[in-house]
């Protein structure tokens, strides 16, 4: 950050302190709402959902071999494989948003080409493990699942369309050497790694297990009653695995990388929750933006509402995961389910700053085409989901 940008930030902050009418009742209510929402996150979501998810993300970053995934993005890779891997590899590769753009540029210029590169760019932010868990936990598993499926399916469609539209230019790419992250020799077998990941995921599932409705069958109620015992048992198994299968170094790396994600994401998410609470409030509690505005622009499942959601999502910048509290606020204020999915699909994949970077990589024409495709497909996904979810 240069000194001048610091000055601008301080100036903006000062003007906000100076000019916002803090004593106005609406502002006071919104301010309280912001902290009520932050507390709701702290109490309901951080310990049982986010913390386990951070450890899973850390484990993925350290223990899953990136090279085994990335080799499918090389120039010689089979096309079908490249597309399929691109659409799902966000789960493994995109946890850190800073890897996405360089990797995209790499795949585009040196690797499998524009199709797989744009497929990866579209699905990455939506299907990383943190985004899926938080979406499913806070906005409901239906929307979480729809987001994951929508991102994968539409990533492939976007990629294929881009490859077809620009097929001539795609042939002229340089075929030079590429460098993949090296595969470190490991002491564990693949089943051991898989079992380790499975245990982590199960701990997350049981820790975040929601209380079932009154009339559901006995199995879910019994599982809910026993959830802390099951999670505790799993933790003991996890400890045993960590002691026997992992070296001291690996355990350190794992904790380090989980801690790295926490440092990176918690402040952003906290700020996002405060902002969403201030503007939109918790469900059933209005804040600064009156609910009838949200309902008239984003309510229902009309083409207009879906289109508006995807266009605004495409331009707006969401810091990692902050799309979730913002959507929670919007849905609470009357946003329809279709537009919610449209925003989830178009939002994190694109933003104005991000378009500028993509534009620098593949040119204005392709970036505009890519953005339009995303807006159209997200609108379509929203319409379909809105129809199904009623």
């Amino acid at each position, binding site marked *: 950050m240069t000194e001048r940008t610091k000055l601008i930030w301080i100036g903006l902050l000062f003007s906000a302190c100076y000019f916002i009418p803090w004593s106005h009742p609406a502002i006071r209510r919104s301010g309280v709402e912001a902290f009520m929402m932050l507390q709701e996150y702290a109490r309901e979501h951080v310990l049982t959902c986010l913390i386990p998810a951070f450890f899973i993300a850390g484990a993925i970053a350290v223990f899953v071999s990136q090279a085994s995934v990335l080799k499918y993005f090389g120039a010689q890779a089979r096309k079908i494989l490249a597309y399929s891997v691109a659409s799902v590899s966000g789960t493994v590769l995109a946890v850190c948003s800073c890897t996405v753009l360089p990797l995209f540029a790499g795949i585009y*210029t*040196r690797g499998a080409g524009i199709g797989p590169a744009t497929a990866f760019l579209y699905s990455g932010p939506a299907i990383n493990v943190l985004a899926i868990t938080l979406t499913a936990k806070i906005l409901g598993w239906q929307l979480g699942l729809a987001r994951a499926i929508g991102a994968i399916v539409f990533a492939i469609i976007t990629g294929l369309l881009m490859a077809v539209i620009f097929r001539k230019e795609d042939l002229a790419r340089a075929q030079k050497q590429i460098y993949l992250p090296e595969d470190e020799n490991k002491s564990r077998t693949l089943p051991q790694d898989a079992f380790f990941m499975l245990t982590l995921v199960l701990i997350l599932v049981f820790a975040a297990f929601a209380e079932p409705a009154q009339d559901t069958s006995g199995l879910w109620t019994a599982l809910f009653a026993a959830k802390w015992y099951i999670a505790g048992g799993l933790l003991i198994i996890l400890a045993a695995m960590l002691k026997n299968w992992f070296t001291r170094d690996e355990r350190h790396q794992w904790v380090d990388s989980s801690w790295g994600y926490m440092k990176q994401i918690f402040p952003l998410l906290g700020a996002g929750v405060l902002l969403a609470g201030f503007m939109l409030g918790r469900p059933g509690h209005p804040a600064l933006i009156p609910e009838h505005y949200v309902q008239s622009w984003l309510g229902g499942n009309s083409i207009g509402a879906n289109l508006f959601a995807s266009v605004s999502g495409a331009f707006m910048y969401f810091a990692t995961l902050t799309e979730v509290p913002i959507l929670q606020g919007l849905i609470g204020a009357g946003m329809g389910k279709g537009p919610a999915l449209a925003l989830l699909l178009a939002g994190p994949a694109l933003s104005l700053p991000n378009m500028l970077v993509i534009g*620098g990589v593949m040119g204005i024409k392709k970036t505009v085409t890519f953005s339009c495709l995303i807006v159209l497909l997200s609108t379509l996904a929203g319409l379909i989901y809105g129809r199904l979810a009623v």
Partner: protein
Amino acid sequence: MEIKVLGPGCARCRQTADHVEAAVTEAGIDATIEKVTDAMEIAGYGVFGTPAVVIDGEVKCVGKIPSKEEVKTWLAI
């Protein structure tokens, strides 16, 4: 010696740059360290994954934070 640290400026890349700087200082080598943040320029080196370290045009590591000791072994040629 010319050292380049490739990465868009995230926490992991900064940590890598710190390790490289510390290693250069400790080894007492005359080297220039440059941070490359432009996505196209990074892709130009053919690296799939950041952070990456390039020394005198040769890619030394990709997609991980190298330890200070590791960087020193690359400097000691």
